[in-house]
């Protein structure tokens, strides 16, 4: 990991990756808090983990499948019930410019 005194996180950029606008005030508070958190988290670099398998699942299970059978879908009206906005049976979003 990089120089611990170099602020490596750019909170505004990362929030943009997460599609979350931040006000300047928010960004300032988060920047400081996250630098503090990362400082703590960086202690992991003290450990020698060479050759250690990463754990992605807490239990070692594989081959969990469903059979290829059709189940009932939601009735259309119910599928649209929770939509903040719908038209012509579609979920409305602002016009996408391609």
């Amino acid at each position: 990991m990089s120089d611990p005194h170099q602020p490596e996180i750019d909170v505004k950029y990362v929030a943009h990756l997460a599609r979350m606008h931040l006000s300047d005030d928010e960004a300032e508070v988060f920047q400081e808090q996250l630098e503090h958190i990362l400082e703590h988290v960086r202690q992991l670099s003290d450990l020698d983990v060479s050759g250690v398998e990463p754990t992605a699942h807490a239990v070692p299970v594989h081959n969990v499948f469903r059979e290829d059978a059709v189940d009932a879908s939601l009735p259309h009206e119910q599928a649209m019930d929770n939509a903040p906005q719908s038209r012509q049976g579609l979920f409305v979003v602002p016009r996408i410019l391609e």
Partner: protein
Amino acid sequence: MAKFADHNETFSLAGLQQGTFSSVEWVTDLLQRIERSDKTINAYISTDGEWALEQAKAADQRRASGEAGPLCGAPIGVKDVLNVQGQPCHCASRILEGYTSPYDATAVSRLRDQGAVLLGRLNMDEFAMGSTNENSAFGAVRNPWNPDFVPGGSSGGSAAAVAAGSAWAALGTDTGGSIRQPASFCGRVGLKPSYGRVSRFGLTAFASSLDQIGPITQTVSDAATLLTALAGHDAKDSTSLKQAVPDYSSALKGDLRGMRLGLPKQYFIEGMDQEVEAAVRQATEQCRELGAELVEVSLPHTEYAIATYYIIATAEASANLARFDGVRYGAREAGSDPLDQYGKTRAAFFGPEVKRRIILGTYVLSSGYHDAYYLRAQQVRTLIRRDFEDAFKQCDALLTPVAPTTAYRIGERTADPIQMYLGDIFTVTANLAGICGLSVPCGFSSADLPIGLQILGPAFGEETILRVGHAYEQSTDWHVRRPPLWAGTAS
């Protein structure tokens, strides 16, 4: 209602089973009790009294027909993170405003199949992110033992309701201690099952590889009854295991003779609250008196657990919470194009702790940092898992404190996230390793705040920890103590 004036004696399923009172009577009383106690503790986000009474009536009929299991008519609260068909599921967030769930979580449907009565939706930290229940769009929950203190989190509403007697039991979820720690802060029993023991289908995911659903109850015996109903394979959750489900209640027998209980030295550390340490040490002594042999064990990677946990949990959360964009459900804020709309919606309706964790999780997965943070955390997770595998070769279960302190004062830790996170040090390890853990009351501080003993067992070792917990509990009277609020609300 006179029958419930002394809530202490009757607050168990025995009353239902023996016909002392009906489910309708109990639920009617509880609905009034909720209304009174929630003025102080704010445990419920919502109740649906009419529906609860309908369920209670059906349960009473079922019991009358003689086909009732132990949970028939039992009034239970459900954490707001679990889907119940036809009910809202806010996850204590504004971003799910207007959402009505079209389906039941598997854990919920299993309880409903048994005739349990769902009272309402319990308050929590937004998206289960927090250790104090101060991060709720529906207001903080307060500790029934002293409303100036937090109930713990994130299942704070669940623990507070059970402690205040406004639910017989409650479902919570535990990603890094969110069942055990609030149960401890509120002086009740909390069980985090092994990963894969209870289906997660219908649990709005915070960190999918760590989350588990479990009960918060008055007694260990109630926890065993509920786990028997909740546990088992579910075809809708690929991570639930096809392990047979024993009758956990039948494991609750005998003393602790022949058992080896480990005390991990890294869990009794300098700087922890002395009253907590003293109470937990005394509890371990009590276990010795009950016949257990105590051995010291070592979990050498414990100090890395918080860093590991906050990297993995937030990384998974950053993806799990990406779906809240205001297109298919939930709240939305208008924007000029879809991505602008997402940015504004997520800015407007997520609370600060959720935003902080999404940013951290996005960062540790992002290009250039993935290996240094996320991959490394997964490797350290392996080391932590191995620590436990080694420890359980030397003993049947581990005894530790649940948290280094008793409940915090409201507002005490909100300004400093890292101090807040460090309070999870004794609980996050079980989630990282996928093992099971039980929190049992073991004393009170001089400020009359509860202290909890944590019993950790190997994966799918629930029978062992329930047996230890039950034996210890039955040899003490911590679990029958009631908070001042309990008496105060029983008019």
